């Protein structure tokens, strides 16, 4: 039983991903150059707001170091939050197409997740080049580990994306809820602050957030420090569970999408 869509998942995902990226840059004067301009401007904003206005301090880091610290937390967050938020409405936004063309439904969600990862992943590489220019010393030896940590992040985004997209088909309030949940998650993840600054009794709760290990791990890999092994364990375990859980729910509900879209 089930659909045997004429086209396989991979090429269709690539097609929607290319469409998504093209739509972002089409009509822009600077076009794809925004991949570099964007991160540059973002870094300038961080420098102004957090270093000069808030006077943010991170133990053991100077002014420019704080910007590096923030940047390494923000870019994975940009990718993750945008991916989950946009994946939520992936099926709903393509209801018309799904009613007429047989295609693997997961491709729509995957493309919505991958697009922010491509963009902010590229942005991340740009800041890895920019930060040393600004005087932030990054450890080149930590680079492979830092990039490796994007994998559980992607798995989490795909898993949560599939989950949210599925629920959104049935419960249209999901988009709203996801927006607020993401905002909450932002503050419950050590992005603006260091994990070590949280009172010791709260740290286990913070470490239960799968994003904590990833963000903190990225910083440890590139800026140095102590590996948060427990939190990293949570991240990888959660990545696998969420990916499989999301896929399971998505597959289970796929035959019902046509009835509720």
């Amino acid at each position, binding site marked *: 039983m089930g659909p045997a869509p004429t086209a396989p998942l991979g090429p269709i995902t690539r097609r929607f991903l290319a469409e998504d990226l093209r739509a972002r840059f089409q009509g822009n004067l600077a076009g794809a150059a925004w991949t570099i301009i964007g991160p540059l401007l973002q870094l300038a904003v961080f420098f102004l707001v957090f270093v000069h206005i808030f006077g943010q301090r991170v133990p053991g880091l100077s002014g420019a170091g704080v910007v590096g610290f923030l940047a390494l937390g923000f870019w994975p967050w940009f990718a993750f939050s945008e991916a989950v938020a946009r994946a939520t409405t992936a099926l709903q936004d393509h209801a018309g197409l799904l009613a007429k063309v047989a295609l693997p439904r997961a491709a729509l969600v995957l493309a919505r997740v991958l697009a922010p990862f491509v963009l902010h992943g590229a942005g991340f590489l740009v800041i890895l080049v920019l930060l040393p220019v600004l005087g932030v010393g990054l450890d080149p030896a930590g680079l492979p580990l830092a990039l490796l940590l994007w994998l559980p992040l992607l798995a989490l985004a795909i898993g949560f994306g599939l989950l949210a997209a599925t629920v959104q088909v049935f419960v249209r309030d999901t988009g709203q809820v996801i927006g607020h949940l993401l905002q909450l998650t932002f503050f419950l993840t050590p992005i603006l602050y260091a994990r070590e600054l949280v009172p010791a009794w709260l740290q286990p709760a913070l470490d239960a957030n799968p994003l904590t290990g990833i963000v903190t791990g990225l910083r440890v890999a590139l800026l140095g420090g102590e590996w948060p092994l427990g939190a990293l364990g949570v991240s990888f375990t959660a990545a696998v569970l969420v990916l499989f859980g999301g896929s399971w729910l998505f597959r289970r509900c796929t035959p*019902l999408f046509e009835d509720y879209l």
Partner: protein
Amino acid sequence: MSVDAPILLEVQDLQKAYPRAGDPRARFGALLRAIAGRPIARLPVLTDVSFRIRRGESLGIIGPNGAGKSTLLKLLCGVLHPTRGTVRRNGSVGALLELGAGFDPERTGRENIALSAGLVGLSGEELRRSFDEIIAFADIGRYLDEPVKHYSSGMVVRLGFAVIAAMRPDLLVTDEVLAVGDESFQKKCIRWIEGYLEGGGTLLLVAHSMYHVQKLCRHALWLHEGRVQAYGDVFDVTQDYLAWHERKSARELGSDVEADYSGSEYRITGVRLNGSEDGSLLLAAGEALAVEVTLYSPDGASPHFGFGLLRADGTPVYGSTTEIEGVEGRRIDDSHLRYRLLLEALPLLPGSYTLKLHATDPEGLRLFDTVERGVTIRGASREFGMVRLAHRWMDP
């Protein structure tokens, strides 16, 4: 088509049912039931449909509006999931389901060709090879570089059909698209489909035009209220279907013969066709048609009787009256008389016809009453027109 050609599509006990429209709470309930693996209350739109298509076959799906034809097509090409039963596909399926399916109205035709080619599974290399062919087939000139939202519906179909034609699927599934294009594009599509069928292609066509179905398909499946009403040879099924339509419209006309009428007008009070009082008649080609009518006359005078045969589309075939031919009716009682007419070996070609019966005044000038009956001539014929003219071929 050979009997042992490989089966391309096999449908078994297919059922599709949609859930009742629900409020947000019911939708949330549906999600929970889906997670728990429990069924959801549904209304069936398609029940127990089974058939198979072998490579090289052509099947037309016919039926009145709302019979489930589009739902069936969508199930076949994987847009919809069956509620029960199975659809097994054994090759690539090219579907042209609705106007502009998969087209982005904001993008140009040229861009949309690439987009929808990707959706139907054409690789970049295949697309490059067939791009010119697609453009030539669509033949929409300068509109190729205009956004699709500026297209007429005919142009959208041209583009859609051109992409599917380039795909050359094992099974081509189309829904009513032939009805949209203009005459010349319809001919082009039919030529292409005929070539495709000759080249071993397999076709599944939904159409309301029996002409298209009979021209392109060898088999037909008649869906009625979500069930298979008939499935078999295209001529048998389409003729039964047309006859059903005739009966239906005869019913809708109501009981137009008032047997115990006793007013002040000349009326038809009884009609028997080949001895039957049914609303419509099914005849084999060349069969005889006996018409017996009873007319009511309020004043004892003798009203005349006229008859006319029309094709289903209203084109007159033949008609005459007893006044023209100087025929007298037989008086049954004071106020009724009877006419009997025999049309021997009807030379009508297979198709759907209407028999009109009229009561006129004794002068044959004024029409007082009209009764219509459907006449369907069964059989397969490749001759053209409505009537077989007597002819013979001479020694060349």
